[in-house]
């Protein structure tokens, strides 16, 4: 009882001044729908928190200076070697600060996990259509976070000024120089003169520990606020509609689960930091522009850029009497630029093609949006080929194939692969839809074989239960393209021109699916359309409830 009184006392004190009881009560009861894929974004969030914690520790010891000293520290193989203070202090963190190596390794693993989680989260958002209205803004924030994460990571692993990351900076210099007209100036301003200069490490340092993390923190905060405000999306299921959220409340359930999840992620990263060596800069040696070793690889999230640079043909042209390094400028900026720009405009393109301006809170199963899923897989294949090509020397070495062959394969695969991925994915999606339709029509095989009096054997099937039915029947509810005045077979005036024809074709492509069995799905009025072999008395819900899926008009909730 005294606890209660204490709580009441503190609560009253705060509420008298801050007025929180109602708002916080609503927040405590905020509903979190459950699905494993919803945890991917949380991995990114918690990795970021771990990055802030471990990164702050590292700043206490790291010296972002390129002035040269002669090393006389604990790591004897480098005794007497000239190196920058940045490199020397990284050695000191690793060998002379207790827990320093652990924090360095957790920091680096967490950075890799951060980027990997963003990748996976973004893919999940795309394939389930979670970016649709009203969540386009959060989708754009997400793409910005991804881009910032790439730069933050590049600067972070370049800070120790070791041989490997120095080569990465050299490549950055070359890429900057390839930019027409201003490239050479950009490179000189960034590096404070000719490469490598003495300025790049302190400059990257302040960007890495203050500017970019500040932007990341602000954008992540906005990302989460918008998510809370708009409420979560949910996967289709029984009782889940476009107008509700079904799940467990924030307090105490989600709090306890997400706390556990944070500890798991921190625990796994600590395990990685303890047992899995990452970025052993003492083995690479300090940077010098004369040396380089085979098998140089950037961190995985830069691999796609690296692969694009490797795969592109050696085209270098003179433009207006100037040297234009097509072979650098195009692969460094175009493939990733296309993916990011394409991702950013995709929600709006899809809205235009389908004419669908409604809010969507119920997610699509990837199979139910075959064209979107196929495009997603094509982009992933495009990215994946270039990413693998970024490690083609490692692949050639481990699989004992010719180095040049790996590049030649990639030169074909980055064009052909996405097309194949598109076709195959689409067929798989439509096949899975057919399977769903089959389940709805004929039910689930029970494994019971029955002999009829006539001697005939039949296998009994059972209709799918309500929960599964709700999932199987969930389909995007496309509206027909807006009627602009056409009648019958005569197309509307707005759909007659070239743009209209393209739009009609794209609409047909985007909405392609296997129709649900008669009586199911869209605006079903009666009947549940079970197969003929259905066992009677399965206790399914009334028709009205069955159709209350995503298909229930009006999905907009404009009433």
């Amino acid at each position, binding site marked *: 009882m005294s606890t209660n009184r204490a709580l009441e006392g503190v609560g009253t004190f705060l509420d008298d001044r801050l007025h929180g009881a109602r708002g916080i009560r609503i927040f405590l009861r905020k509903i979190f729908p459950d699905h494993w894929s919803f945890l991917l974004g949380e991995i990114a969030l918690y990795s970021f928190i771990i990055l802030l914690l471990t990164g702050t520790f590292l700043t206490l010891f790291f010296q972002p200076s390129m002035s040269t000293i002669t090393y006389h520290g604990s*790591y004897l193989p480098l005794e007497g070697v000239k190196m920058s203070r940045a490199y020397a202090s990284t050695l000191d963190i690793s060998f002379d600060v207790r827990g320093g190596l652990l924090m360095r390794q957790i920091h680096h693993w967490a950075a890799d996990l951060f980027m990997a989680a963003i990748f996976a989260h973004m893919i999940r958002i795309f394939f389930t259509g979670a970016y649709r209205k009203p969540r386009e803004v959060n989708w754009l924030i997400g793409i910005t976070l991804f881009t910032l994460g790439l730069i933050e990571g590049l600067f972070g692993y370049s800070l120790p000024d070791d041989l490997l990351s120095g080569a990465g900076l*050299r490549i950055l210099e070359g890429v900057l120089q390839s930019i027409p007209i201003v490239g050479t100036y950009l490179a000189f301003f960034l590096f404070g003169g000719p490469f490598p200069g003495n300025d790049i490490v302190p400059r990257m340092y302040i960007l890495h520990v203050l500017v970019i993390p500040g932007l990341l923190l602000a954008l992540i905060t906005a990302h989460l606020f918008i998510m809370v405000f708009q409420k979560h999306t949910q996967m289709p299921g029984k009782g889940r509609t476009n107008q509700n959220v*079904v799940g467990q409340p924030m307090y105490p359930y989600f709090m306890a689960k997400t706390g556990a999840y944070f500890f798991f992620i921190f625990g796994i990263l600590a395990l990685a930091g303890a047992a899995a060596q990452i970025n052993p800069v003492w083995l690479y040696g300090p940077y010098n522009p004369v040396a380089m070793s085979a098998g140089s690889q950037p961190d995985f999230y830069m691999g796609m850029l690296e692969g694009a640079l490797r795969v592109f043909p050696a085209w270098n042209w003179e433009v207006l009497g100037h040297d234009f390094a097509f072979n650098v400028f195009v692969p460094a900026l175009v493939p990733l630029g296309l993916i990011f720009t394409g991702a950013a405009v995709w929600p709006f393109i899809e809205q235009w093609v389908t004419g669908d301006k409604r809010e969507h809170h119920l997610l699509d199963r990837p199979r139910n949006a075959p064209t979107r899923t196929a495009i997603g897989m094509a982009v992933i294949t495009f990215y994946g080929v270039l990413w693998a090509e970024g490690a083609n020397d490692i692949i050639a070495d481990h699989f004992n194939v010719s180095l040049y062959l790996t590049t030649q394969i990639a030169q074909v695969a980055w064009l052909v692969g996405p097309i194949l991925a598109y076709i195959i994915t689409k067929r798989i999606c439509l096949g899975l839809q057919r399977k769903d339709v089959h389940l709805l029509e004929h039910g689930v095989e029970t494994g019971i074989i029955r002999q009829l009096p006539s001697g005939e054997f039949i296998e009994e099937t059972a209709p799918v239960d309500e929960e599964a039915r709700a999932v199987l029947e969930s389909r995007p509810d496309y509206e027909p393209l807006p009627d602009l005045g056409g009648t019958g077979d005569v197309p509307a005036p707005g759909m007659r021109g070239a743009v209209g024809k393209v739009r009609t074709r794209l609409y047909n492509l985007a909405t392609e699916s296997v129709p649900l069995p008669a009586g199911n799905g869209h605006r079903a009025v009666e009947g549940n359309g079970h197969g003929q072999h259905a066992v009677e008395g399965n206790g399914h819900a009334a028709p009205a409830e069955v159709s209350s899926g995503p298909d229930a008009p009006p999905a907009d909730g404009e009433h």
Partner: protein
Amino acid sequence: MSETNGPAEPERGEDLMADLAASGGEPDEGQARHRVIGTPAPAQARTLLADQRGEPAEVRELPAGPEDLPSAKRAERAVAACFTIAMLAGLGFIASYVIFRVHTINNVFHSNLALGLTMAVAFLALGAGAVIWVRRLMPNVELTEQRHVLRSTPENKAAFAKTFEEGAEASQFVKRPIIRRTLIAATVPAVIAPIVLLRDSGPLPEKSLDHTVWKRGTRLVVYGTNRPLTPAEFNSPGASLSVIPEGFADNDDALAKAATTLIKFGPDELKAPTVMNWTVDNIVAYSKICPHLGCPAALYEQTTHHILCPCHQSTFDAARGAKVIFGPASRPLPQLPLMLNAQGYLVAQSDYHEPVGPSFWERS
């Protein structure tokens, strides 16, 4: 997460019956089928919010606690055990910090392992305890919350528009174009100034990328030992060395352009377009800086005479003027003109005759 819980679960009611019916009296198979379809398991719990049909509202949203007491007791002990392990591991972390020294590779290895493992165990045990707590002790519930349309009501929108217009009118921003235009003009320098301020972040490139520090008579010294070379000391065909201009060993800015590869060939192995006048005794010198993106083209294969850049695998034929035979590089490695000085040491005849390293706009 929402899979079937253990005995702590409240009665499952109709859904279980539906499952049984659906799967032909075999509940396990029913569960398996759920997973195949890839959806969360059925919502076993009750939706505890009152529905909208005017039934009396429930006072409680969440049930008080588990009904199966022995199972709850077991779960409680498991949670407490996990938290105890976490505490012990945490203490172990502090102890490891005190016990394990660093300063040698071996010590660091042990310290890192002890600190990391205790930390991992502490966090993983905390997480495991919390998960057991949620899943075995807290009664499984599922609540439903209604969404509201995000779009504002027409009244609110109209009120907003009115307020905004009133403000605009009161400020007379629209009515007085001269204020508006001069204000906009005033912000232009504020946008440009920060960019101008960055001007001194580096010198202008001017012609600095066109040249390296090599000059007529600069001795080639071996990278690492800084010893000058005579052809007699470098006489086994197939050998290659990294050389730098004498006096610049500590100047990374100079070396980033001047690093050079020296290769000794056998008689008659060097072919056009190698400039033979720039070789001495079948010793040829090429820039080590890859014309693609500036990495040191550091790998040399004796049997094929190929120079390979490890960054993007541009490959150059050293016997034929370092012309490109594979990869993204668009130009051969520039050749450094060599000669002997009066003392018989290898020296440069001149700087490279073209800019070394990656392309840039002003390169001609």
